[in-house]
């Protein structure tokens, strides 16, 4: 049971990501993210991290994907996208691909992966909450302040400037 589901989720994640990268239609790319994000949430469930899985869905599908869709749907040229950043012409892009891909594959092969027998799903929410408010309080607070700054910045950037006469 486990392996079949895992393979299905892994294939879903990769196929979704592939469509995002290779589709000529940017709306399709945006919707393919849905498949990718959802399968990643499934992978979290597989790791017995139910809370993280739900957070993945709520943040990435409910938040980020919807924002991307808003942006994409209001663009004019859906199918013929002019690539404005020409810094990465094919030759240079291939070099980058081979180097970064090589590093990733080397990392995957060389890492000594710790495998564990599949755990029965146990509640993780309470432990996560305790960890956030005790041991990892500082990073948690710094991230919160960063997000608040981003929110205020977005409001300032997005509002209309009212000039006093």
């Amino acid at each position, binding site marked *: *049971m486990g392996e079949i589901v895992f393979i299905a989720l892994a294939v879903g994640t990769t196929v979704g990501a592939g469509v995002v990268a290779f589709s000529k239609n940017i*709306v399709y790319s945006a919707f393919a993210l849905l498949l990718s994000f959802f399968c990643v949430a499934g992978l979290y469930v597989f790791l017995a991290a139910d809370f993280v899985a*739900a*957070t993945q*869905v*709520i943040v990435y*599908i*409910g938040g980020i994907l*919807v924002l991307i869709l808003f942006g994409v749907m209001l663009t004019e040229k859906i199918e013929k996208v002019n690539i404005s950043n020409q810094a990465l012409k094919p030759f240079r892009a291939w070099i980058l691909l081979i180097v970064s891909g090589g590093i990733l594959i080397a990392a995957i092969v060389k890492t000594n992966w710790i495998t564990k027998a599949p755990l029965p799903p146990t509640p993780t*929410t309470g432990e996560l909450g305790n960890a956030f408010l005790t041991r990892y309080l500082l990073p948690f607070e710094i991230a919160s302040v960063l997000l608040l700054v981003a929110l205020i910045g977005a409001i300032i950037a997005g509002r209309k400037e009212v000039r006093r006469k």
Partner: protein
Amino acid sequence: MERLADYIVYNLPFLQQIPRVIVDLIIMLFFATCMLLFWVALFAGITSWVERRVAGRIQSRIGPNRVGPQGFLQWIADGLKCFLKEDFVPAAADKKLFLLAPYIVFAGMFAVFVVVPFGDGLIISNLNIGIFYVLAISSLVVVGILMSGWSSNNKWSLLGGMRSAAQIVSYEIPVSLAILPVILLTGSLGMQDIIRAQGPYPWQWFAFHNPFTFIAFFIFFIGALAEGNRTPFDIPEAESELVAGYNTEYSGMRFVFFFFAEWANLYIIAALTVTLFLGGWNTPAHLYTNLFGLLHRSVDVAGTFVFILKSLFLVFVIIWIRWTLPRLRVDQMMDVCWKYFVPFSFANIVGTIIWMVLADAAPVLGYVRYILFVVGLMVPLAIAMKITRNFRLAKSEIHLNPFI
């Protein structure tokens, strides 16, 4: 569910020869089908008739009363008609996404039913992240609505889809924040735990627990209406402006999928409100289960009955609101959300925390719930008195008989 699968395989030895994957899959499909056939489909269908009849009576019309007694079978006739209609795709639409969108909306709604409780122990899966799962999985609906709006290649659809997504994304914030006080008081995200933390009598419900949950209850209910695109927040499908919003181009079965999701969503809103704030399936008999002993199952049945009764009453309230109030403008809708609900729900969380600390120190605060219950009781009483006064002043004829 896992336990049920174990139980079935253990008792039926011939199943042990079949791979476990298939047994599990069949059981899951069985549950999904039961839920769909015996509850969601029936509820959505019958509610469509109830809503039209109630709307008729509120607007001094008759409403559908031809098919079957009092028009009760109207929903079957409508369903059959839509089933036999052509599955039409506009020429300029993006075919793949146009065909896919209704399923995503429907799946996002239907997946919520996994954690909707019906009684003590009567729940498909009592996930320990229950209410958080509901918030997460229902965001699929937004993606489906955006998909249908864009792929129809129609201005009304796109505008409707955009409005709907903006509305749902905005109201997700006050709704989630209004749930937090309840989670603080319960200390768990599981639906059954939340219900068990409350009591059978109204003053033991979370809605009347303290002044902050009292406000949170209203924020949650109104925000949930907005998330379900119900009047007074039906701006995405405003008939007078947008034809029908994101489902303008749909017909036949695919159109039904959207409305199916909308009506089933009514029950979800009501059931979640009952679970979080109105005591769920708790009945006075649940306090004396030891006393009842063998009658334990009948207590459960009574609990289920109470839960569904409360939910159906709330569904009626939602329908009532829809045919009474006018629609908000887009800017008013956003004002209500960001200028009132969000700050109030933040204050609620802080207030609930302070209340919990104070209540430990001063148990007197426990009596506040009785006061709040009386205040809560005053609201419907005041409405009833005002209505009777209006009737008396207008000297109008009253037709209270719903059956015409």
